[in-house]
């Protein structure tokens, strides 16, 4: 049986993809080189990693209202993550996901998803049901 995590209902379509996980936070403006598709803030735990087409699993969204525009702009250029899972998002990233029609969920019954999901896990996110399934582990 794959592991099923229960979260609050989210935003965007059902997606599957590979997780990139860190016990760290997220701002599209301050943490990323959006031209190269990498984490560019040296203090970030994913510094140097490519986020393209990955499902990011992070703790919280940080300041930077600009991120609300940026997810859609990144999606339009094909330089976006596939989805973002937060322990708890802030308003900006939720608004940005709604604008970009990018999949985003948070608020898990089992606790902090950065402790439950590992980098490389294959995930299925069903925002309308509030479910994240870890397909490769049981």
């Amino acid at each position, binding site marked *: 049986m794959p592991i099923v995590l229960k979260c609050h209902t989210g935003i965007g379509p059902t997606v599957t993809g590979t997780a990139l996980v860190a016990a760290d936070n997220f701002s599209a403006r301050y943490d990323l080189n959006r031209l190269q598709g990498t984490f560019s803030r040296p203090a970030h735990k994913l510094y140097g990693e490519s986020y393209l087409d990955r499902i990011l699993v992070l703790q919280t969204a940080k*300041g930077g209202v600009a991120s609300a525009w940026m997810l*859609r702009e990144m999606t*339009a250029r094909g330089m976006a993550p596939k989805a973002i899972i937060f322990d708890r998002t802030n308003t900006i990233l939720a608004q*940005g996901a709604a604008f970009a029609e990018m999949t985003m969920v948070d608020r898990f019954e089992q606790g902090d998803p950065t402790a439950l999901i590992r980098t490389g896990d294959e995930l299925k996110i069903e925002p309308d049901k509030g479910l994240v399934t870890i397909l490769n582990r049981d």
Partner: protein
Amino acid sequence: MQLADEEKAMLAGAQGPARQWAIKHQIAVGEFFDAPDFVAVGQAHIMADTESLGEAGVAWLEELARLPEQHRRVRIPTITDPRGLDFDSYKRLRQTEAMAGLEARAIAAFEALGVLMTNTCINYQTILPPVRGEHLAFGDTGVVIYSNSVMGARSNFEGGPSALSAGLTGRTPRYGYHLDAHRAGTRHFELRHRPRDLADWGALGGIVGKATNSYWEVPVVTGLSAAPNSDELKHFGAALASFGSVALFHIPGVTPEAPTVADAFQGRAVPAAAPIGKSDFDAFFAGYAAGGDKVDVVVFAAPQLSLVEMQQVAGLIGGKRIHPGTSLIVTTSPEIKFAADRMGLTKTIEGAGGIVAAGVCFYQSYAREMAEANGWQRLLTNSAKLVNIIAGYGYKPTLATMEKCIDSAVAGKIV
């Protein structure tokens, strides 16, 4: 969400496709945050610089701008955060014609929507200050935290698309800081070292922000014997929002929802206070220290400078000459720039070799491209917010007082 008849009409498209898109977007966000309904808002403030909009965002705005007038105009006062570029200074900052072209397109689109191009992140000092209890849809985290905390208004962090939606619909989903329940203090800090200048106030915001670290936590700071001024609270709030994603703080005896410590916590048990002393400030500054290094660019921004700060910069720089290997940039709002021109402050700063840019705030102005075009790396500023955010753009930032920043700009190295 519970929808009123007018909201249902907007959702059905009866008021055109722009308002239909807006209310749909707001419902998606409102449902995500369990909003019971909408609340009418008095103003909207849109963060929409072209660096973050990109070509995709500008083209999307232009589509809205082509709609018939009755379908595209905002219905409440809707103002803008700093732009990506100042047409009077962009060449000196080596920004490109392509950037200027995109900026002009974005401005034309916003004007067609009836948006007032205020281009400021200090609208609470200069445009229409919020009022206690007023519901707002403000972008820019520094604007929101100041409006919520110092003025007692009610706004969430509203990103550009959501603030524009609020402008179009005249309302926003009722969640987060629109609700009394979320406005109670949740963390307690006791100040044992009074900040002396704006850099210190920003550092305090950084210290409390790092320790708080959540949009949904409300820090309460006790131990202040006298009220700070607006610029001090501006730097404190901007750094607190930047380091901690925090949208509301209380200072008992100073901020309007907290006449007493008990009020700050809405009568709930007051948590034990975490002390903040001089050593915490020293450690904060030490984290960015780079004594003796060549300084490439000195920036006064984030937030834009008030007229009083403009006078302070001019007073410190007057009669001096900035080192030829160093650039000095001051950003302010168009209104303050006009006043600074009129009062001779701009002339003093630019006469010493500085650049005064209006309607921008440095970090929203293609900071990475400016660094590459100008060969900038070591940045010195008195803004704790700026040192927090600018490293991701390839800068090495150092925090210092306004006096030290200017002395370093003259020396060409960090003194």
